[in-house]
């Protein structure tokens, strides 16, 4: 019954990942075997999968497959349609780079044994792939939780460190709660047909109330995984705790599985969303984006900074998603397609940019053993490869043309500009504010990235030990280069990407964005408006002018350059301590958005022998939501504990009373 086809191919490749992982158990403690053989192999599988997924995305077909596994009445269904192909592509393409990097990254004696690590890592990949292929609720949930579980074990690789254990615990707890919410949403979706296949859910007819309930449940469930504020608290804990390649996968890919799930439920299974649904993800997304970027700006741990920046990007993605739902509900298919396009594009971009950055931090971590920005600096001299490749990611995520981050933000803003066409006055007013917020977030992202790159790689080394930092190995370079190349190409060939994505938009909102311009290098997707963007020309022009300038300068003027000590207004005794620290760089943001943070300062007194300045910034949601929650549970637990005093007479009394009460009930009934 199983014949050769893209779907079976993808399934086979996922299985291959799983087997590579299992192979790790053959020589669990051998770094060479896992690193030099298995991880690169995994990367190759990733490339193959990417090719396959890309091909089926362009083909735009849909095929299904039923596995002889699962519950008796509900075997695992698989389905490969444009949407899943796209996210598979995202997963495979970015994970290829990460896997290669990981091959060079993992060292001996890092908690979990390399072989086991390899197993968990590849199971993580495979389960993510399965999530995107699953076509029934049960299979989806199994894959979903398998993903959470494998990533949990990866996060707790260094399980001897209490903070990391705590992070893992919070992560898995939140993931579990989210999973239950998703499960309940599926319970609504099956619409009493007791068929848990997605086909049945597509066919089921739900009353508006039930449909809304399903949507909101799904939003909560997937929102937890995506890190939507206020469900985000696990993310800044777990992502930094994991080894860098894993952080890269979690931020770059795993968050997107949540987006995939929400898209699947909202636009595919539910089908006809009401326009007001979109407001929820729109508002939440905007808030998330802003919250994330503001917190990223004040972080002092480089991986936490990136984690918060992931929150920001997820916020932007959800904004686009909400926007497209609103447009769709208002019957503006073409614009909805544009917004959806922006969403998907941003997912793809973020997968590459964020993975790249996390891998960069990984190399820095290995070279210096430092995560604290306050102890880094000047690494561009010691590790040029990492520095320049990371720079690409940083510029991309800051949304600068002609790199990829800019394209998706451009598309998003373009779709925002249709706000005044929505036939709902209130929304008309609301959406421009959203546009303003998105602009602000984009600008702040630039701030964050200048801080990130500048403090780590530029300036003078803040610690003497940094002088011994070494550049990363060949495998790591390969991985970084692959991702950087991705950022560049996605930025330069938007038209081709958009063309590939049109199959997805066609599947989800029934239409693809138009391509007004005839030139292959010109992106003009905006329906009914003559707006276009041609990054290739853009780049060519810039490079051209720069080259001309350089040439002109070289030809006309002498090349004499003298090296001297830094001028610094003639101030001689320059020490590295005089540069801005990360705290210093975040200070304006701290002042401007004071109300967001829960700040505790430790200021030195004038008389201090060893003056010390410390500042700790906490997430308000902990103290506002989660700690009270825990306390109330504790209180309830204490309250009920009173019931069990150890007195047998009391216990007998319970039985007696129960008996009497039930008898009375039975008599009355």
């Amino acid at each position, binding site marked *: 019954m199983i014949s050769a086809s893209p779907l079976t191919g993808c399934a086979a490749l996922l299985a291959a990942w799983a087997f590579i992982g299992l192979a790790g158990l053959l020589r669990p403690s051998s770094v060479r075997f896992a690193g030099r053989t298995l991880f690169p192999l995994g990367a190759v599988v990733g490339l193959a999968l990417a090719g396959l997924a890309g091909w089926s995305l362009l083909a735009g077909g849909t095929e299904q497959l039923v596995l002889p596994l699962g519950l008796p009445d509900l075997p695992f269904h698989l389905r490969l349609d444009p949407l899943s192909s796209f996210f598979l592509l995202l997963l495979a393409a970015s994970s290829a780079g990460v896997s290669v990097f990981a091959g060079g990254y993992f060292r001996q004696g890092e908690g979990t044994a390399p072989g086991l690590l390899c197993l968990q890592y590849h199971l993580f990949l495979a389960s993510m792939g399965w999530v995107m292929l699953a076509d029934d609720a049960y299979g989806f949930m199994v894959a979903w939780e398998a993903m959470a579980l494998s990533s949990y074990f990866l996060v707790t690789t260094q399980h001897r460190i209490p903070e990391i254990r705590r992070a893992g615990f919070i992560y898995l707890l939140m993931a579990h709660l989210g999973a239950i919410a998703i499960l309940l949403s599926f319970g609504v979706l099956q619409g009493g047909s007791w068929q848990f296949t997605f086909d049945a859910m597509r066919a089921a007819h739900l009353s508006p109330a039930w449909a809304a309930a399903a949507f909101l449940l799904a939003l909560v469930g997937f929102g937890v995984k995506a890190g939507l504020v206020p469900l985000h608290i696990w993310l800044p804990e777990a992502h930094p705790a994991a080894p860098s390649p894993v952080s890269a996968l979690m931020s770059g890919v795993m968050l997107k599985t949540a987006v995939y799930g929400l898209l699947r439920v909202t636009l595919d299974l539910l089908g006809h969303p009401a326009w007001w649904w979109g407001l929820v993800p729109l508002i939440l997304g905007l808030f998330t984006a802003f919250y994330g970027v503001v917190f990223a700006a004040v972080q002092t741990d480089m991986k936490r900074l990136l984690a918060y920046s992931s929150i920001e990007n997820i916020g932007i993605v959800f904004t686009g998603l909400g926007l497209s739902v609103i447009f769709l509900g208002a019957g503006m298919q073409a614009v909805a397609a544009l917004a959806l396009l922006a969403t998907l594009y941003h997912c793809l971009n973020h997968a590459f940019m964020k993975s790249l950055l996390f891998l960069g931090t990984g190399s820095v971590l290995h070279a210096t053993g430092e995560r604290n920005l306050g102890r880094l600096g000047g690494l561009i001299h010691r590790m040029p490869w990492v520095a320049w490749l990371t720079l690409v990611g940083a510029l991309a995520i800051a949304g600068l043309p002609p790199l990829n981050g800019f394209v998706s933000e451009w598309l998003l803003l373009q779709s925002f500009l249709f706000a005044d066409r929505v036939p709902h006055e209130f929304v008309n007013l609301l959406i421009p504010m959203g546009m303003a917020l998105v602009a602000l977030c984009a600008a702040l992202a630039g701030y964050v990235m200048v801080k990130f790159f500048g403090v780590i790689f530029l*300036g003078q080394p803040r610690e003497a030990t940094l002088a011994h930092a070494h550049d990363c190995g060949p495998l790591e370079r390969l991985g970084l280069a692959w991702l950087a190349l991705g950022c560049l190409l996605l930025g330069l060939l938007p038209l081709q990407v958009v063309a590939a994505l049109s199959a997805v938009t066609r599947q989800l909102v029934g239409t693809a964005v138009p391509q007004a311009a005839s030139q292959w290098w010109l992106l003009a997707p905006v329906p009914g408006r003559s707006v276009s963007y041609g990054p290739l020309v853009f780049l060519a022009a810039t490079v051209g002018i720069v080259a001309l300038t350089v040439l002109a300068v070289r030809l006309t003027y002498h090349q004499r350059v003298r090296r001297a000590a830094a001028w610094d207004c003639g101030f001689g005794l320059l020490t590295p301590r005089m540069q801005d620290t990360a705290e210093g760089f975040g200070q304006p943001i701290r002042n401007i958005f004071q109300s967001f943070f829960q700040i505790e300062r430790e200021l030195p007194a004038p008389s201090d022998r060893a003056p010390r300045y410390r500042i700790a910034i906490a997430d308000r949601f902990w103290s506002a939501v989660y700690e009270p929650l825990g306390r109330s549970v504790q209180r309830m637990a204490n309250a009920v504990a009173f019931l069990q005093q150890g007195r047998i007479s009391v216990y007998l009394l319970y039985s007696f009373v129960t008996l009497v009460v039930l008898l009375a009930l039975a008599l009355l009934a």
Partner: protein
Amino acid sequence: MRPEDWLTQLLEIVAALAAAPLFLGWVNQCRAWLQNRRAPSVWLPYRNIRKLFHKDAVIAQNASRFFRLAPYIVFGTMALAAAIIPSMGTRLPLVVSADAIALVGLFATARVFMSLAAMDIGTAFGTLGARREMMVGFLAEPALLMVIFVASLLSASTALPAITEHLATQTLGLDPALAFTAVAFTLVLLAENARIPVDNPSTHLELTMIHEAMLLEYSARHLALMEWSAALKLFNYACIGFALFIPWGVATGHIGPLGLIVAIPTLALKLLLAGGGLALIETLSAKLRVMRAPEFLASAFLFAVLGLLVHVMLGGRG
């Protein structure tokens, strides 16, 4: 695209490169007049640049390649920006490849490279300048975007030529939305070009300076390029302002010699007026403390958003 379009394109770039320092000089001269000082020559910026190009470059030992690359990048982006702003004609070949949002992106690129370069040496002033520059930037950039969005909502496009053509062909009348955004834009222009009240281009007082602090380590040709691109930036902002708010006179449609004959003088006139106005503002206002700058820019942002809301509430005419 016709060949003469390419010609206009080239003309614009060259004109911008050539006129930018002059414009800067003009502004300084006006300022001097208004402050009863003996005005420096209008050509001073040119001499300055030329002098710098002849000097030997002195670079700090721990400067990386990035430090030397940055000036060229900044200069290149500014030149490209000049190319895509319809200051004389709207039929520009390069314009199709970058709309207003991309233009803002270009400015952002320049800013990021400049700040990173400033951080490269690792001096106190450099990082301080970079930080302040980014702080100004992350508030000014969205404000500028908002300004542009209002215009593009009016003209249903973010392509600058389209905006200009639409506004130019519009019957002259006061649009409250545009009025608001005009105010916002002026504020942004002041902030982005390191003018009073946000920054003072003619001081090296470390506590207050922003833009200059970033250039401290540069010398000779690198500094020249930086100065030049600063001038270009001012010029570009002025041209954006014209394109959005007083687009009349810009040659729309396929441009002929006649069109240019009208366009060039009008542009010159506009520049003269704008320079005077700018100098006036700078003279009348006092330098703000750096910590007040965010409030200043927030108000700019507010004006822009108000313009947007007003536009929407009055039922967009887009």
